[in-house]
Each structure stands twice: as structure tokens, then as C-alpha cells.
């Protein structure tokens, strides 16, 4: 039973400080699962490339889910892929986060109407923390989504359950 599983009913100053420190560590070092699906993956790569540089935020791609903290669903999720994504997500160690990047991952995007093989929104399979709109989102938009995620992590607390 780890500390992160516990819930403290009343917060005191110590817990608040520990909270801050641990949240800071988690939000400053979000390692993403190196994993691209479709068009958005290219923008994701562009985001990690020199012009936008994901590394500034401490984000580095890890290729195995065991060492990743966040999974960026970058592109269309098909039914065939959804089970795999579910498994990859499951195989990540807690605490873990999900950014849904682009229209397709948000809700099936352009394929929502006739896409007989497209999962209409990754949130039908795994819980999403931040939705980034765009088709594909600009790198800045993805960075903004990341900042939003950091904001969310910053507000996490031992006092309530971590998402």
C-alpha cells in the first residue's frame, strides 16, 4: 500500500507540502509513450522536434509503457487498434495520464459518421484527462494541452483520489 493510494481525510500543512512536491515532480516529468497513430502523430513528432521541443517540458518519449507516464492518443483509433491501446494503457504503471489529441481521438472526428471501423472517441475505452482539439492540432495546441494537464496534476491532492 503506497502513499499515493491513501486518502487523508483532513489536510494539514505537511500533506499540502508533500502534495506540492510530488505533484511538481509528476508534472515536470511527464514521459510519454512513444506511440503514434495517424496524422496527429506527425504533429506530435513535430512537437518534439526542434521548433517546439517537447523536451523543454521534460517530456521524452519512452518506447515501453512500463516507463511511461502519459499516453498521447494521436490520431484515429480504429476498432482493431482500440483493444491494443487499452492494453498498452493498462500496462503503464500508475499514476498515468492520457491526452487525447485531435478530432479523431476526441470523438472520431471526420470519421464519426460513416466510419464503420473507427472508434468514436477514445474515452469509450480509457479515461481521458485532456482533450486537445484540432485536426491535427498545431504543436502549440498540443503544448497547451500539456500545460492543461500539468495544471490538472498540480491540483491533485492526497486528500482526494488521484485520477
Amino acid at each position, binding site marked *: 500500500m503506497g502513499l499515493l493510494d491513501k486518502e487523508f481525510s483532513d489536510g494539514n500543512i505537511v500533506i499540502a507540502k508533500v502534495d506540492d512536491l510530488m505533484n511538481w515532480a509528476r508534472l515536470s516529468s511527464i514521459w510519454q*509513450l*512513444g*506511440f*503514434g*497513430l*495517424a*496524422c496527429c*502523430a*506527425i*504533429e506530435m*513528432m*513535430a512537437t518534439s*522536434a*526542434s*521548433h517546439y521541443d517537447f523536451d523543454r517540458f521534460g517530456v521524452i*518519449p519512452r*518506447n515501453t*509503457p512500463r516507463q511511461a507516464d502519459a499516453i498521447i492518443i494521436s*490520431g*484515429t483509433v*480504429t476498432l*482493431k*487498434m482500440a483493444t*491494443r491501446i487499452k492494453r*498498452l494503457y493498462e500496462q503503464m504503471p500508475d499514476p498515468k495520464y492520457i491526452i487525447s489529441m485531435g478530432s*479523431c481521438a476526441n470523438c472520431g472526428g*471526420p*470519421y464519426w*459518421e*460513416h*466510419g*464503420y*471501423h*473507427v472508434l468514436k472517441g477514445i474515452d469509450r475505452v480509457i479515461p481521458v484527462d485532456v482533450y486537445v482539439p484540432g*485536426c*491535427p492540432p*498545431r504543436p502549440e495546441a498540443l503544448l497547451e494541452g500539456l500545460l492543461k494537464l500539468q495544471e490538472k496534476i498540480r491540483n491533485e491532492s492526497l486528500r482526494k483520489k488521484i485520477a
Partner: protein
Amino acid sequence: MALKTETMVLNMGPQHPSTHGVLRLELEIEGELILSVKPHIGYLHRCFEKHAEAMTYPQVIPYTDRLDYLAAMGNNFGYVIAVEKLLGIQIPERVEYIRVIMAELQRIASHLVAIATNGADIGALTPFLYLFRDREYILTLFEMTCGARMLYNYMWIGGLSHDIHPDFVRKTKEFINHFRPTVTELNNLLTFNKIFIERTANVGILPLDTAINFGASGPVLRGSGLPFDVRREDPYSIYNRFDFEIPTGKGLVGTVGDCWDRYYVRVLEMEQSVRIIEQAIDNIPEGDVQSAIPKRIKPPKGTVYARVENPRGELGYFIISDGNINPFRVKVRAPSFVNLEVMGELCKGHLVADVIAILGSLDIVLGEIDR
């Protein structure tokens, strides 16, 4: 009585750093030796053809963008040429020039990614970032013109969505001046690096007749030594006005048709694209960017197969029209789909590490394989 090592089935993908998306390769290996490779595709099957049947002709264009998302301009180009052929309309000169410039810029951008990922697969990460940096400049040009970075919806039936930006010509020239030294740098850093050569030369040799029978096209076919290019073979748009060479694999450091040849053909093609842009950029005629076409595009009954040279090879659109505002059937001949077929034969007898090099040199985009 040979010591039979048991074979092992190793999955590569769908989540794997070097399968360029969601390809899954099922490798049957003995030790590190590949006995067979089974590609499994369809992890990105987005039902393009079904969508195309439900859309009107102009509405299909945004979906064609998403086929080969690294070369969206080329996809648009092919589709509009097909529909224009079906409609039998003439396109203004200015549009043709701009389309060619855009397509060639897109080819450079796409090849940059191809080379970058090929290098990254082999372990060179720095060239990857240099090339993505340069790609970013091309994307800026596109964004300036039509407002989007990757999926443009720029070429429309009978014209273009926007005229070029007033700054476009100047910026493009600036880019070309910046780009030439980058290629030299790339050659120093990666192309002629001994390790890179050792990794790619004499690996994954694709003989010419096999390549043709497998329907390979684009740099894969040219890497095997045949100067086949739809731009020259079956000139569309105004490509017959430009002077450019078709680079082919020469077996400079290994055998003709190996991974290095396919890689190097792309490097040389970027140079040729720059040449085409240089010839075209100063001669853009004045005029309108939309020809007069009916508001509701309703081609006559018939079929058409139009093909263009996309960065990855011959991109063909087979459109059947039943005289409605929706296409009856759109079939895409996706170059990567065809090029990837050869993978299974190519990998036999290589090592695990070679699979990556071969896959990188085939340069696939799952978007158009699975459509």
C-alpha cells in the same frame, strides 16, 4: 544434423518505435535470423472509400488529405486531376504552376520525413531533428498560403482554395537557399557515414523484375534501377515543361536496389524537386486561381483512373461516377500499400535489425495503406 534453434514469434508493433505508425510485423525468428515476416495492417483503417461514397465531390478532398498525411498536397492533386479528367475541364495556367510548386514542396517535406525516420530507425537521432526543422519551414510556407500545416484541402476541383500569399515567392526562394546546404550537411552526417552505409548497403536488395511484378513504384522502384516516374512517363499537369532528372539507384556503395539506394534516391529527388521549383517559381503567370465550374459538381457517368507521382510512388485514383453528386466508387491505389507488400519477401534471411532498415527504406505511411 544441424542444431535447430527453436523459432520464436516476435511481434513488432502496432506500438513500436520504428514501425512508422501502427503497422504490426509478425517476425518468425531463429536466433536473430528472420525466417518470415508477416505484416498485419488495418490498424488505421479509416474507411476512406466508404466516406468518399457518401460525400459530394468537393467534400472528398479533405478526406484525401488524410490518406498520406505526409503528402497531403499530392493526394489532393491526384484526386482533383481525376475529377477534372472526368469532368473534362481546362485549368488556368497559374493554377497549374502553383499546384506543381506545392506538390514539389510537399515532396521535399515528405522525403525529409522519410529520410529522417529512416535515419532514426538506424539510430541517428540528430539528423532526424535537423530534417524536421527544415520541414517546419516548408510547413510555414503552406500555412501562409492556405492556413493549414498538414492537411491542406488546398487544391480544389478546377482550381485552388486560395491564391498564393504575396510573400510566397520570396519566402520560397529563401527556403531553397537555406535548404541546399542542409542536404550537404545531411550527406556528411548520415548518408556517407560508414556505419550508416554498413547498415544499409547490401541489405534488403530488391531486384528490378521483382520490384515491377510487385507493383512497386516511386523511390522503391527507382532504387532498383528503373527510371520510372509518372511525371515523365505519363505527364500530368505541366510536368512536361520542366527539366529534371529521374535519379535511380546505382549501387554506389553496394548492390543496386538495396536500402541505401532507396535512401539515396530520395536525397537526390529532393534536389530535383528544388530544381523544378526554381524553374517554376519565377514563371507563375498572372490570372485567376479558380476556373469556372458549376457549383454542384456532377460529372457524367463513367470511370477514370488518374495517377500522379506522390513522394511514395504512383498514387492512383480510380473513380466510378454514376452521374450523381456523389462518387459511386473511389478506389485509391496507395503507393505504400503496394510497396509494403514486398516486405515479406525482402526480409527473409536478414537479421532483426535489418527489418528496421528495410522498413525505413520502404518509407510507408499507414494512413494510405489502411485508408
